Structures are given as structure tokens and as C-alpha cells.
């Protein structure tokens, strides 16, 4: 099959034909309950074919890959940089670099993971420029004392029940903005983009224990920061 024919097949399949329909149905089902998530666990059988076609020079195949992941990559760069302009620049440069270096992609991992690695590095580079003291690739040196929660108490109604949606959005923005970039980046890759610990370690050039340590700190610090809002709202 020629590359143009491949793309036509993919497009037709997305319209409901061939063997792609089950994945599309599953995707729709996932989208209802988690509209923010793309179906990372849904088999994307056409992706290796698209990558091969793009590698052989099929621009339409590469554009299809861009269409598929542009929203997720923008979300990733936005979550890392916390700056709209930097996020757009990082996203754009990531896709440009992916196009230029597509022939170096070994196809032994997911294309998306490879793309995330490029985009995360672009975003981190911009973050380092803007906040040079906040990003480090060193292993964490913090002790355990700072992790231990104090004055633990029941939150009562969940934050989502207690705060209006717009207020909740503002609180979450403030909370994640306050998190150190090192921790935020690991949290974003592991919990929001759903990369494995090993994939996150590879993307950031960290050891697996370092990723686990930062994820633990990120989750506990986010809980702690959210806890303050819960106490402020319900002082009794």
C-alpha cells in the first residue's frame, strides 16, 4: 500500500470503516466519563503505520500524528511552563523537532512517549530561562521530615462538593503554581499524562527511585496545599 493510500485508509477508518471502529467506540465511551483524557490504553494500531509513512516522507501522515497529539502536547507544555506563550512555543518547536528528527525515532517505544520527551525538554528549557533557580535534574536531597503531614483531619465534604467549579479551578491553578517545578513536572508526566515511572525517568533523565521520590513529594505537597484551602473554608 502506498503512503497516500495509507492515509486515505486511516481517514476512512476514522469515519467509521474498516477495523478501527471498535477503538473509536471505546474512545467515545472514555470521552464521556473523562473528557480531558485521550485513550492512552486504547490500541492505536494505525500509529506505527503512520510513523512509517511519515518517515518515508508522507507529510499527510505526519500531520495526522500532529492532529492526534497537539492538544495533549499543549496541555503538557502548559502544565510544565505555566505560561501560555512559552507553552505554545515549546509545543511548536517540539513538533518541528519531531518532524526534523523523525528518522532517529527507533520505533521500539511509543511515538507519543518520544514526542513527550521532546516536548517536556522544550518546556523545561523555557522554564529554566524564566525561573533559573527552580529546575534541577539532581536527585532530591530533602529529608523525610518535611513530608510528614501535621494536624490531620477529615475534610468533610470533598473539595469538589464544597467549592463552585470556577472557584475550584482557581484554587487548583494556585496550588499547582506553588509546587516546585521539579515536582510538578514529574506529577504532570506520571499522573496527568499517565506515563509509567520508567517512561518518566527516561523523559527526564532521572533514575526510577528519583521519579518515585519526586512523585511522592508532589502528591503529598499538593494534598497539603489543598488542605489549607479546606481549613480556611471550614475552620471548625
Amino acid at each position, binding site marked *: 500500500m502506498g503512503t497516500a493510500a495509507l492515509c486515505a485508509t486511516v481517514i476512512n477508518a476514522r469515519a467509521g470503516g474498516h477495523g478501527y471502529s471498535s477503538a473509536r467506540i471505546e474512545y467515545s465511551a472514555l470521552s464521556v466519563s473523562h473528557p480531558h483524557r485521550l485513550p492512552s490504553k486504547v490500541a492505536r494500531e494505525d500509529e506505527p503505520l503512520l510513523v512509517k509513512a511519515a518517515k518515508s516522507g508522507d507529510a499527510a501522515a505526519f500531520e495526522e500524528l500532529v492532529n492526534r497529539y497537539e492538544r495533549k502536547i*499543549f496541555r503538557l507544555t*502548559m*502544565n510544565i511552563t505555566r505560561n501560555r506563550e512559552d507553552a505554545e512555543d515549546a509545543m*511548536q518547536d517540539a513538533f518541528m523537532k519531531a518532524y526534523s528528527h523523525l528518522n532517529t525515532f527507533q520505533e521500539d517505544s511509543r511515538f507519543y512517549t518520544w514526542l513527550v520527551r521532546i516536548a517536556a525538554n522544550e518546556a523545561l528549557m523555557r522554564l529554566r530561562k524564566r525561573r533559573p533557580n527552580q529546575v534541577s535534574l539532581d536527585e532530591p536531597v530533602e529529608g523525610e521530615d518535611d*513530608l510528614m503531614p501535621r494536624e*490531620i483531619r477529615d475534610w468533610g465534604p470533598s473539595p469538589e462538593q464544597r467549592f463552585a467549579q470556577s472557584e475550584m479551578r482557581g484554587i487548583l491553578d494556585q496550588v499547582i503554581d506553588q509546587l516546585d517545578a521539579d515536582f510538578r513536572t514529574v506529577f504532570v508526566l506520571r499522573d496527568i499524562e499517565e506515563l509509567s515511572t520508567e517512561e518518566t525517568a527516561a523523559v527526564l533523565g532521572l533514575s526510577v527511585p528519583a521519579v518515585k521520590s519526586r512523585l511522592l513529594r508532589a*502528591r503529598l505537597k499538593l494534598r497539603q496545599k*489543598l488542605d489549607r484551602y479546606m481549613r480556611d473554608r471550614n475552620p471548625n
Partner: protein
Amino acid sequence: MNCNRVILEISNYIDGDLDAAMKLEIEQHLQNCGECMLVINQTKLTVEIFCDSQQVEFPQDARTRLHEALQRKMRKPAS
């Protein structure tokens, strides 16, 4: 198993990334420690809230600029 040890294993516990013996030790501790149970539940809830809130808007103008830049790049002969 004490509270400090449980806190250090919270992430692994939430992710189901513990061996059976450690998981059992933690669960036995949780039966008698309401505070650790609260921290675990609140940490899980925190992660869920952040994941569920991820409806980052992808601006149309950013998308347009991305595709225009791609088109320009694709038209250029490979260097």
C-alpha cells in the same frame, strides 16, 4: 510499621506498586490508624481532582500557527 513508614510508601500504595508483604503490613496499620487512612484517602482524592480538572483549552490561534509553521517546514527541501 509506623506512621512515618506508611507516609513514605503512600505513592507506591496508591499505585499498587508494593509487594504483598508490605501491602499487608500497611493495611494492618491502617486498621488501627485513622490519621494515616485520612492522609491516604485525601492524597488519592487530590490526584483525582487534578486529573479530572485537566480541561486545558487549546487555543485555535495556537493551532493555526502550529499548522502554518508545519506547512512551511514541510515545503522546504530536507537539509
